[in-house]
């Protein structure tokens, strides 16, 4: 969810536009002092603006549709229509007609789409179909799937360019996310220019960069007249483990054994509940579950306390891989004559 501060309804106050994980864009209108609780941005037919995958509020489940497939330049994955899932959205006057259109990022398949506003900012009428955003003659695409999109006039030519960032492999060792820039060439976008290389997740013992789920913002952090980057994302690293003495090795063995016993006992408690709930539905099931769980609380609390006591020591003796989110600053040091910025 990348917040964008923009006067979406043209009332003179900045609003907040976001795309969120439910698969649709939202806006929180501002009055200059506060923002109201957000609501979903709808198309001209009153439908939620989605790609293909979205959270169905009426049926309370994830749902899919093909009504939002673009009519031309349809992106595909393995020959089939791409499974779009919108998680990012920005407002941008795409066609210079004085109103905000929506540019939508696809977290599932990595494409970028456009919903054109056929109305005005005061009375938006968003089209019922997405259009595929093209770059260099092909659908704009991030191999790591889109984490978010940002509009920025990177080169100061008066036209908004697009930054597209990648999720990358969220948990494993495969390639992580990066950030690409697409320059606005007037009627289309150019090919991707790498701002941040996708992370190859080298084995490091401390956080070195955002590796996964990169969310950039361009701003002149240091006041030197060029655009730097703020980037949110997860870093992955494994703290260096110290050499253990024989005593420590023995201690670690005991602690791990204790931890395994705790896990086994916890699983056994859960199994008792599962078995007792078999065949029950609705309120009787909920009531029985609560009754059994409450009866187990003292035992579970004891196990939790024990686990909390030994885990830090295990971590100290044998650090595990870390995956923690931070916000990073990238200072632009491109020589002025090479920066492309004005």
């Amino acid at each position, binding site marked *: 969810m990348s917040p964008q501060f923009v006067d979406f309804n043209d009332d003179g106050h900045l609003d907040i536009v976001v795309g969120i994980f439910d698969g649709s864009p939202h806006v929180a209108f501002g009055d200059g002092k506060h923002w109201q609780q957000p609501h979903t941005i709808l198309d001209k037919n009153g439908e939620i603006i989605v790609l293909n995958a979205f959270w169905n509020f009426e049926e309370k489940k994830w749902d899919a549709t093909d009504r939002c497939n673009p009519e031309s330049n349809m992106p595909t994955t393995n020959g089939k229509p791409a499974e779009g899932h919108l998680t990012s959205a920005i407002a941008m006057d795409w066609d210079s007609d004085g109103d905000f259109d929506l540019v939508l990022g696809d977290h599932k398949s990595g494409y970028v789409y456009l919903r054109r506003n056929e109305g005005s900012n005061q009375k938006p009428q968003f089209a019922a179909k997405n259009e595929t955003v093209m770059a260099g003659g092909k659908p704009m695409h991030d191999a790591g799937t889109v984490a978010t999109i940002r509009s920025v006039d990177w080169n100061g030519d008066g036209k908004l360019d697009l930054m597209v960032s990648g999720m990358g492999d969220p948990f494993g060792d495969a390639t992580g996310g990066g950030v690409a820039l697409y320059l606005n060439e007037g009627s289309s976008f150019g090919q991707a220019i790498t701002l941040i290389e996708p992370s190859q997740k080298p084995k490091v013992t401390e956080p070195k960069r955002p590796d996964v789920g990169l969310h950039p913002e361009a701003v002149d952090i240091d006041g030197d007249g060029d655009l730097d980057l703020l980037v*949110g994302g997860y870093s992955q690293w494994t703290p260096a483990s110290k050499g253990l003495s024989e005593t420590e090795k023995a201690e670690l063995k005991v602690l791990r054994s204790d931890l395994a016993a705790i896990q086994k006992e916890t699983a056994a408690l859960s199994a008792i509940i599962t078995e007792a709930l078999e065949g029950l539905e609705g309120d009787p099931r909920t009531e029985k579950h609560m009754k059994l769980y409450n009866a187990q609380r003292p035992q579970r609390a004891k196990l939790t306390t024990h686990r909390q006591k030994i885990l830090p020591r295990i971590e100290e003796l044998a650090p595990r891989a870390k995956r923690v989110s931070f916000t990073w600053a990238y200072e632009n040091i491109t020589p002025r004559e090479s920066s492309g910025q004005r």
Partner: protein
Amino acid sequence: MTVKRPTAGRDSLSSRAIMKVATQTLRPLAILALTGAALTSHAFSQGIQFKEPVRISAGDKMLGMGRMYPSPAAHDLNGDGRFDIVIGDLRGHLTFSLQNADGTFANEQKLKDANGKILDFGNW
């Protein structure tokens, strides 16, 4: 797809860039400012270069630490001419960290509506 480039903030660019990188923690003195001589864009082929990234602190914590997919936005929330940082996350919550006069960032606070309720985009 045209845009007017933003002009500098009111106490713009009297200040020079400061990026303290020594401790892997950034405390920038930062003002949004986009001025300078015009350049051609052909130079992109030579590559845009950034310093090794540094983590940003907010008060006594790391900004956005532990949030689900933190997503920063630079915005001057209190109109003091310095950009502040708003962080969105996967859960649909927003926090903000005001930039102090010395370029450091204050502790994150939750962004609330007029009734004091947390602004909540997470409705799924």
